[in-house]
């Protein structure tokens, strides 16, 4: 039989290992944030937001076209994903027991796990090939496909959190199911659904792989949906893998902007979730 002393030592070693594991994971986070902030701040100025890229080799300039491009492509994605995602979520929550609801749930989870690069290939086949060229539409479609399952599952979960008594109250007053859902259940879950959409937007705005051969890239400013369009992430990729010192500087600035977006959205979502939880406790 093992001695008590050894068992205690073993236990302490295990606790120490777990603490060590936390440090091992937080160290890269600290390093990444440190480098992104310190290198990004040096390159970030007003021109970054308002100026166009300069010709190759010439220093200065900014990413105004890429910032607008990211907004356009993400906006298109939301336009496509919010209706499909929310409605699928409503279906899964309302008809939770049905076989089709399980199929939809399985499809959503599957879609969520599809590598982003494969989504890009899919969007290439569906949008780029028929239109004959890279376009903002294709990029928006690719990101929209990635967004749908996130929104659908969040909506489903939040609708199921709404107390059954509220739904039953509406139905007892003679409301149809549609009316009960749209005027009672969805409004009750709305803050959470909006939080979910914001988080999904933050996630897809940081995607690069699905845009490489859908939205492609563009050195010029465009708002046309049928033209190739520049985005922050693809621009950071181009600059990071390019040979110029000034490009690298701008890539760090772009990374800082991306990380700031993600960070702000996460904090906002966390605060909102806390408020929603408090509301539920009181209600």
């Amino acid at each position, binding site marked *: 039989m093992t001695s008590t002393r050894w068992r205690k030592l073993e236990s302490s070693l295990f606790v120490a290992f777990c603490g060590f594991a936390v440090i091992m994971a937080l160290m890269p986070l600290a390093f990444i944030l440190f480098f992104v902030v310190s290198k990004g701040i040096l390159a970030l100025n007003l021109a970054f937001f308002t100026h166009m890229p300069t010709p190759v080799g010439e220093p200065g300039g900014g990413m105004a076209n890429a910032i607008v491009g990211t907004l356009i492509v993400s906006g298109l994605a939301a336009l496509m994903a919010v209706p499909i995602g929310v*409605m699928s979520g409503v279906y899964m929550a309302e008809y939770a027991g049905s076989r089709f609801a399980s199929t*939809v749930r399985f499809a959503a989870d599957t879609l969520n796990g*599809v590598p982003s690069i494969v989504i890009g*290939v899919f969007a290439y086949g*569906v949008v780029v090939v028929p239109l004959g060229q890279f376009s903002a539409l294709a990029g928006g479609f690719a990101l929209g496909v990635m967004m749908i399952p996130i929104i659908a599952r969040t909506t489903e979960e939040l609708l199921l959190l709404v107390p*059954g008594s509220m739904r039953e109250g509406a139905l007892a007053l003679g409301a*149809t199911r*549609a009316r009960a859902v749209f005027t009672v259940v969805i409004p009750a879950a709305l803050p959470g659904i909006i939080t979910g959409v914001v988080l999904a937007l933050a996630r897809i705005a940081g995607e690069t792989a699905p845009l490489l051969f859908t939205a492609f890239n563009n050195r010029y400013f465009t708002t046309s949906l049928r033209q190739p369009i520049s985005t922050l992430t693809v621009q950071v*990729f181009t600059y990071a893998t390019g040979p110029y010192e000034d490009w690298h500087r701008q890539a760090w600035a772009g990374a800082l902007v991306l990380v700031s977006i993600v*960070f702000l959205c996460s904090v906002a979502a966390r605060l909102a979730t806390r408020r929603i939880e408090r509301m539920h406790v009181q209600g």
Partner: protein
Amino acid sequence: MTERSRDLQFRLGTGAFALALVLIVCGILFILIDQSMASIQKFGLDFWRTSIWDPVAGQFGALPFIWGTLYSSILALAIATPIAIGIAVFISELCPGRLRQPLVFMTELLAAIPSIVYGLWGIFVMVPWVRFLETSLPDAIRRLPLFSGPPLGLGMLAAALILAIMVIPFTSSVSREVLKSVPVAQREAAYALGATRYEAIRAALYYARTGIVGAVMLGFGRALGETMAVTMVIGNNPKVALSLFAPQYTMAAVIANEFTEAANRLYVAALIEIGLVLFIITLIVNSLSRLLIWSMAGRMMVVEEPATPPPLESAA
């Protein structure tokens, strides 16, 4: 209009959107097969057995990519799994309550950082560190096949490290959920029998093993499909090699790098076939992982208070 038909309308209306979601998933499979037909017909199984990738000569052998994808993901898992489980145990079992929320938030942040930012940091910060590590290894070790070749920094080791960092938050958050669902009575029983902390937690981990394997598989699925960060640090060289220092290539990376350069139909079809196989592999891994996590959660439901919402009356 009767109420019943309105309810049916509602069901069909929302169902149509849900159907769109299902069709998209089927559409992915269909488009990938359709667009890669040229390559599937021309090369057959040789595509996956040969390792010469020479688009100019029209030779497409995808073995190096499948090797690179599996090798980098397995290495990443080997690094990430103990750390991720350690974090899960620390957060759910050991740490003081006040630390819990900040730690959860920080691991979530690690998952939220865009892949391209990992890649940027990887090229300019981590790769030089890896190169330093590689050059400072003693010669005796450098002669082993696992560490042979010039120390470039860019290569399999860098890719595995960055993948490990990216996978940790996924595996640890699912492991944490799984551990949370182990009944408290189980741990109390262990302590009552005089178990040390380690022994009690080991018993909890053993109880949760199915779910934890599911969590690890989920991380594996993420690692297989990860594109940008790996593309930027793996060195992009289509050679099957055992060495951790060798620049190699992955399936996702070759699609990202060569898709816009692919000059003819066969080349594009070959790249899409790689995408098709990547899709199928991740589909299998993810489904298996979900199955394991679900079966675990299902078992918990019986033990604990069922948390299902009140059943909805069916429309029909």
